[in-house]
């Protein structure tokens, strides 16, 4: 199973993310969001942004983490393709987003929604659907 699959949605963007661990799931979700937005890179300089998020549970934590990445990217004209977790639990995380400056995006992702987002474990994989407002 590929880590990120594009699913259909009438108006917005629905993806399914799958990974061997929660940290990898969050990282793949970040990459899935960035890839879907089609960044036009503005240079090779690596950028690092620190994020710190607390949420009521794991599902909300994923939405809040991706929302933070979206906000940093939109405010600073950047996109992130990797994340280094310094700490991650079911309800909080501290991490560094790694990315590059962008000239623009092919697709505007307005927001990360909670709709249908439910992190589940089956066999040795963690999976969830995520719907982005575009």
């Amino acid at each position, binding site marked *: 199973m590929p880590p990120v699959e594009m699913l259909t*949605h*009438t108006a917005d963007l629905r993806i399914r993310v799958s990974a061997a661990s929660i940290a990898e799931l969050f990282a793949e979700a970040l990459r899935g969001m960035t890839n879907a937005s089609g960044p036009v890179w503005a240079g090779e300089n690596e950028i690092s942004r620190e994020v710190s998020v607390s949420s009521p549970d794991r599902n909300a934590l994923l939405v809040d983490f991706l929302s933070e990445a979206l906000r940093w990217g*939109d405010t600073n004209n950047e996109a992130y393709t990797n994340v280094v977790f310094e700490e991650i639990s079911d309800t909080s995380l501290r991490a560094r987003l790694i990315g590059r400056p962008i000239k623009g*995006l092919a697709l505007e992702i307005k927001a990360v929604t909670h709709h249908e987002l439910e992190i589940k474990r089956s066999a040795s994989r963690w999976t969830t659907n995520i719907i982005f*407002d575009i």
Partner: protein
Amino acid sequence: MPLPASIRKISDEIWEIPRSHRADMRVPARIYADEVLLKEIENDRSIEQLINVATLPGIQKYALAMPDMHEGYGFPIGGVAAFSAEDGIISPGGVGYDINCGVRLLRSSLVEGDVRLHLPALANQIFRDVPSGVGRGGRTKLSVSEMDQVLLRGAQLMVERGSGSQNDLDHSEESSSMPGADPSAVSDHAKKRGLDQLGTLGSGNHFLEIQVIDEIFDSAAASSFGLKQGCLAVAIHCGSRGIGHQIATDYIRLMIPKLAGWGIALPDRELACAPIGSPEGQKYYSAMAAAANFAWCNRHMIMEAVRAAWRRILEPALKNADLTLPLVYDVAHNVAKRETHVIDGRSVEVVMHRKGATRAFGPGRPEIPDAYRQIGQPVLIPGTMGTASYVLAGTEQGMEQAFGTSCHGAGRRMSRAAAKRTVSGPELRQKLESQGIVIRCDSARGLAEEAPEAYKDVDRVVRIVDRAGLARKVARLKPIAVIKGG
């Protein structure tokens, strides 16, 4: 989701899912559709989303869906719900992320023949002067204190500074300045996302069109709105950009951990809400009104840029012609507002949520501008770039049936990926240009995603609105130039 077995036909245009369909429903769900449109929405999750809306605390009468209904998140697009202002809720997910996404229509006394030769130059000038596309900033860079003024006062601020006129404010929902806005309810993060976005279209389904008034259905209403067959109009469709997105994100995040304490159980977290009387509910209302004011200011500035481009290109060629572009009206289609409606024979204050739905107030309502009060509120329905748009007028019947609400557009029927597989951007451009429609869009992908084939039949959607009595047809407009981001 297949149609529930419990669904019953109320009339040719109304279908009802009874309250007994699911134990947590507080009211029935009503869908305005014919059998063709009903079949289309079976392909997505919009019916389930509408049923979820019917479970929210304080909901009045029905959870409603307009004929352009399709799958969203939380509320379906085309979803409408009124919640008691005494003991109901307010839901950021019921408004959506693009707060006060809406449409503004300007009218011209010029006819197509006057501008046909100049249309490419005019479209080029507007494309240059109105930034569009993902993340494209505008020419106006606000300071944080200027942003606060925009959030507090909307387009009134622009008029006081000499941009536009009082007439523009008089011809807009809420006079382009929603009361109750409070910039201190908006996070610094949200403000930062909007500092360079005033006067910009954005991307996706947002657009600017030059249109020709193709047919008049109601002469008296058209005359009142200043619409004449054969004359031109300009439609502007956009919203509150990044600031609205961040406000919705911030408040959904704030409300989710508090739901249990308020005794609210939700079938979908995206319906996150707060009691309207709670500090969180009040604060969201103030922040949402601030974003709505940003959106009205945004459309006002785009309107002014279009007026300047119109004069610059047409003045040298059309000396002595009337080159003014008066505002017909401006409507919001993603917003929550306090309104008074008659429910079970008594006047009740509600918090109306319209997500992908347009206010369509009938004659006599004090919220309608003086010039239109006898006729009913103008309702602006953008179609697709290859078909048609409509102007409707609100009705008494619509007030009784649907809290004075109409559809907001054609409504998507095809995902963006499916649209790209079905339609080639370059071929679509060629096809539209062969029909005499000038296209200015940098992105072939963006063009394909918004192809007419990706949308429901706008004529059918509007026919249902008209036959159901939610609003009546006044005029149909066809595009002759389309300007959009990718």
